[in-house]
């Protein structure tokens, strides 16, 4: 009699444990995203659908899942968000696209993002992020797009990034990065465009006649390459004034 009662209790406990585990597993990614929501100010209510009581976050707007209900995309570009990122983002094991560009997000890039080994695109550009680029990002071997431009990131470019063979588009421009620019590994493909407007040590843009490239001593400091975003409005206006002059002359004013 005692043994069968014991057996029933064990059985019930096991069921309870299993149910508990499945619920927790279903919610771990939701919890991670909810931690992000808690850390962000959201004046446009883009995260309104983010309901942590749901079994998984796959019905939330701006979240995409695969057919195993695991998060593959977070699309929150241009959403007027501010606040900070959270280390829990590193728990989204199947995440491929993290799109948080053009917001007002501050604080550091969490080291834990280096755990997102399925990541294909990391877009944090046009925010207020500070601190270093975590060397752990070198673990993201499937990364094709790494755009961290237009933030306030400082310190050096981690050499670990040169091991990411899949990297196609790198933009680190418009930050406060210092130190040398790696040219080995995947970085052979990247030009001064990717590094413009930092405090990096970059050799002169226009190379002298056949000389092996040496780390420049004479041109340390900020690279004098201005990216034409608002295409040289001033330059164009200067081009224009002679035309305006002749126009006015023609009208004899």
């Amino acid at each position, binding site marked *: 009699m005692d043994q069968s009662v014991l057996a029933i209790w064990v059985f019930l406990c096991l069921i309870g444990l299993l149910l508990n585990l499945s619920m927790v597993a279903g919610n771990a990614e939701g919890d991670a995203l909810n931690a992000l929501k808690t850390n962000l100010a959201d004046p446009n209510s883009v995260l309104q659908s983010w309901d942590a009581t749901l079994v998984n976050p796959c019905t939330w707007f701006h979240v995409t899942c695969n057919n195993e209900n695991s998060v593959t995309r977070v699309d929150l570009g241009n959403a007027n968000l501010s606040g900070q990122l959270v280390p829990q983002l590193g728990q989204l094991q199947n995440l491929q696209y993290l799109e948080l560009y053009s917001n007002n997000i501050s604080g550091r890039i969490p080291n834990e993002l280096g755990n997102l080994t399925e990541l294909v695109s990391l877009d944090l550009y046009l925010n207020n992020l500070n601190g270093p680029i975590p060397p752990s990002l070198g673990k993201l071997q499937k990364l094709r797009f790494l*755009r961290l431009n237009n933030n306030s990131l400082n310190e050096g470019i981690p050499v670990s990034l040169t091991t990411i063979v899949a990297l196609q588009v790198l933009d680190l421009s418009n930050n406060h990065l210092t130190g040398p620019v790696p040219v080995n590994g995947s970085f052979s493909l990247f030009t001064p465009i990717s590094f413009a407007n930092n405090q990096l040590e970059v050799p002169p843009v226009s*190379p002298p006649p056949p000389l092996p490239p040496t780390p420049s001593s004479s041109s340390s400091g900020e690279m004098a390459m201005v990216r034409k975003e608002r295409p040289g409005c001033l330059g164009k206006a200067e081009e224009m004034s002679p035309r305006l002059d002749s126009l006015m002359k023609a009208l004899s004013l």
Partner: protein
Amino acid sequence: MAKSTIFFLLFLSFSVLLHNVTASDDIRCLQGLKDSFKDPNGNLNSWNFSNYSMGFICKFIGVGCWNDLENRVLSLSLPNMNLSGQLPDAFKYCSSLTTLDLSGNRFSGPIPSEICSWTPFLVILDLSNNSFSSSIPAELGNCTYLNKLMLNNNKLSGNIPPEISRLTRLKVLSVANNNLSGKIPPFSGLSDFEYGGNRHLCGGPLAKCG
């Protein structure tokens, strides 16, 4: 009364000039290419400039942008589109271009010697399988960041300029099936190369010269 009309006309002309002039460089680049290329199959029909919006050129066929928010061209891939004509200086407005693939078309004329001042940040240049003629410009040696240079299957003549052998990042080079001659300059660091199909080319991995 006359003066106010004149001022109005002036204002109008000013705004027209201003519009053309503040059109982003890269838009000007693509517009120039479209005007310059002959496109009998209408492959560039998606290149529609009638409505400017954020990143609109990024949706054009063959155009890759640096990001979704800027009209800034990273790559141009127009292989096998039956395009012809010569390479125009409109390229100089695509100042952020790093990949140019025009392979498998019917482009002709010389490879412009100015190409590396127009687009100094080229990493991949693929002009293979066209009808480019005249010599390989020595000025290609100014494309400091070039990793891959494909010039095979054209009508190029003359020598391979030694300046190209000094490109420190060059890893892949093909000049096969042209009309090149003379001695192949010493390259180092090439992982992939093709020189065959040039009757009077010698040296390097080919037969010794003279």
